């Protein structure tokens, strides 16, 4: 049991470090951000340039086969690359969905010609992809989606609405799950396509979240035409294709980021208690810090166990599944408690008065979304119960009923 690289891993890490030293700027402290001072267009351009550089050095998708621009590497090499890159001012955040979810789906189901056309531009950051599955009426139950695709000659005509689409407004292409047959049970009537996001009839609108920020989009489809050649797998086989994509999503969903133990301890050291002295002396504060600390450490070392499995070439065990279900409510509880510690001043979101403490308010408005996005607390517990512990699924009343006969309800 140790934290050291194996000799092969150490060699790879050295190679990465050498390349990064030559090609990127090292962070001077952990808070510096590659985006500082850039507007959206500038940031995008910088990210695309960096992605091309990474791709050319075959560090963009390390585990992909060499023929697709990878190096046939191991998952642990990807982790090592990420660890090293995080110490440099390297752009992130535009290509992960495309390369992590969409392109692998393309590779599995598109024609060789299509892949020859699309994989390289995606890998080099020249084209950005998004994933169009969730709908207002189909969140946890993705297969209940309504967006219709109707065959018309060599095309399909799409009408409907998708939601929670990250990056839709700057994406060039997307993979799109649609309902092509309402007369069969819901999982059986779905078909997957890919499409040009600039197609006529596609409209993106930002979704304003409860915090006031807008990190996601909704996408409306009005008589959008997609050639049948852009169908991925057979008509009616969309659910199987989507599972490929979603499998990759589950691995991608990360931890809640936001203020953590250090920030809470800092707050508690600087906050005066009613009886004088910092509140970190109060036993309730200490008990909570300890609880959240061991939760955080538990997640950290659970990830180390996962990395170990990867490092040994094993498939990670089920332990990876607990990350979000622990960290999202933890962030909500921790930030709510921070507000409570600030007492009457916990309402203030005034930069001048509140200073660094603003992070607790901001995260307290972000955490509710984390408990929902990428699988709600409730769905994740179902998944742990069923896939990890092997408990039976819930009773399913929708398995054998034609989609059109299912109750529909509120969007």
């Amino acid at each position, binding site marked *: 049991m140790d934290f050291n690289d194996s000799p092969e891993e150490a060699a790879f890490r050295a190679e990465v470090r050498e390349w990064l030293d030559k090609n990127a700027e090292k962070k001077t402290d952990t808070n510096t951000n590659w985006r500082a001072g850039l507007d959206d267009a500038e940031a995008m351009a910088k990210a695309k340039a960096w992605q091309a550089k990474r791709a050319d050095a075959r560090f963009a998708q390390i585990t992909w086969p060499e023929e697709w621009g990878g190096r046939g590497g191991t998952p642990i090499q990807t982790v090592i690359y990420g660890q090293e890159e995080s110490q440099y001012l390297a752009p992130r955040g535009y290509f992960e969905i495309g390369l992590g979810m969409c392109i692998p789906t393309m590779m599995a189901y598109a024609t060789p010609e299509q892949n020859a056309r699309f994989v390289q531009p995606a890998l080099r950051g020249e084209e950005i992809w998004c994933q169009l599955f*969730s709908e*207002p*009426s189909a*969140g*946890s*139950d993705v297969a*209940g989606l309504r967006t219709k695709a109707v065959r018309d000659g060599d095309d399909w005509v799409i009408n409907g609405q998708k*939601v*929670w689409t990250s990056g839709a407004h700057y994406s060039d292409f997307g993979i799109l799950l649609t309902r092509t047959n309402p007369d069969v049970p*819901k999982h059986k009537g779905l078909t997957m396509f890919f499409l040009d996001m600039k197609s006529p009839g596609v409209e993106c609108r930002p*979704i*304003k*979240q*409860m915090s*006031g920020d807008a990190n996601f989009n909704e996408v409306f489809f009005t008589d959008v035409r997609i050639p049948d050649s852009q169908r991925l797998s057979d008509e009616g086989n969309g659910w199987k294709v989507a599972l490929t994509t979603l499998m990759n999503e589950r691995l991608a969903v990360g931890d809640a980021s936001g203020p953590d133990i250090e920030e809470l301890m800092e707050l508690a050291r600087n*906050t*005066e*208690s*009613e009886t*004088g002295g910092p509140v970190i002396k109060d036993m*309730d504060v200490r008990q909570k810090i300890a609880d959240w600390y061991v939760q955080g450490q538990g997640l950290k070392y659970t990830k180390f166990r996962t990395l170990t499995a990867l490092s040994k070439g094993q498939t990670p065990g089920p332990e990876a599944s607990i990350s979000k279900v622990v960290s999202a409510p933890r962030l*909500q509880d921790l930030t*709510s408690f921070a*507000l*409570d*510690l*600030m*007492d*009457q*001043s*916990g*309402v*203030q*979101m*005034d*930069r001048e*008065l509140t200073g660094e403490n603003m992070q607790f*308010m901001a995260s*307290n*408005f972000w955490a*509710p*979304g984390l*408990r*929902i*996005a990428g699988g*709600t*607390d*409730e769905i994740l*517990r179902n998944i742990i119960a069923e896939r990890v512990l092997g408990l039976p699924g*819930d009773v*399913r*009343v*929708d398995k054998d*009923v034609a989609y059109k006969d*299912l*109750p*529909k*309800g*509120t*969007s």
Partner: protein
Amino acid sequence: MNFDFSDEQKMLRDQARSFLEDKCTSQTVRTILEGDEPYDKELWAGIAEMGFLGAAIPEEFGGLGLGHLELCVIAEEVGRVVAPVPFSSSVYLATEALLAAGSDSQKSAWLPKLAAGEAIGTFAVAEGNKPATAKNVNASFDGSSLTGTKVAVPDGDVADVAIVAAKSAKGTALVLVDLNGPGVSRRNLRTVDPTRSYAELTFEGAPAELIGDDGEGWSLKERVFDRAAVLMAFEQVGGSQSALEMAKEYAMGRIAFGRSIASFQAIKHKLADMYIKTELARSNAYYGAWALSTDAPELPVAAAGARVAAIEAYGFAAQENVQAHGGIGFTWEADCHLHYRRARNLNLALGSGRVWKDALVTRLEQRNAA
């Protein structure tokens, strides 16, 4: 045993509910949330006209001369609709302070205006990032004028009169300041709940007069806050009940996996927990209402209990209402965040649950020792 509101009080509640549901929709709240107006002036005028502001003010001072039980049922309805008006500052705090300790001339000067909604009152005790304790009082009162800063003062941007905690020759004093007079400057603050205003108030030799006894300011502040805690607990219970009803309505209508999500235990049990906490808060609030309305010696314990239970209920209901809604609950478009914001606001406004729990135990210890 009559541990319920009277039929007349319930009628008043129904009246308040139908008035407020009519005049204060979620769009009303959003207009304030998203716009530049600090509060909804039309709604405020309507509430004044209904007599709600002066429910507990004697008729001689322009009120309805009802009692605090009547004010409790109104407060619950104000909470249900997340009303974007300075009700709590003006009614639970300023009015209660005047009723508790105002001289006849102070009462005559202000209560009729407060009752009519012509003036808005508030109470300034918060001390920025420091706890609001007697020791930390920053402003000072020299017998006729006030100097110092108070932040954050609820509705301080729109209030006409404030009761302010200040250091005086004899210790701590509460003083009354006409905020439209000289020596007062205000700065608006951004907060977690823009549907209610907060401001920083700076006093530079502002004319001020003592309210209550000099040197007894802090105990008077505690008396007023106990009274406000009960009234605000009803507002929180109203909010909690409303969040529960939102969650229930959404869950009943939302279908996943071919059935209403309200038929899944994860959602059912969540709603049951919201219900349980709301009922526990309601019962604690009732006890507080009894103590408030009878000026019972149990008030300090009852008020702290009401506040602690109300904070627990509203915080939980507002938070889990978002969760029960799933994705849509996290959007600006859904009304869930109106409660989420208001819950955080009310749960901190008179001091956090943590501080009140500590105070509750201190009061239990004092009662046991007595």
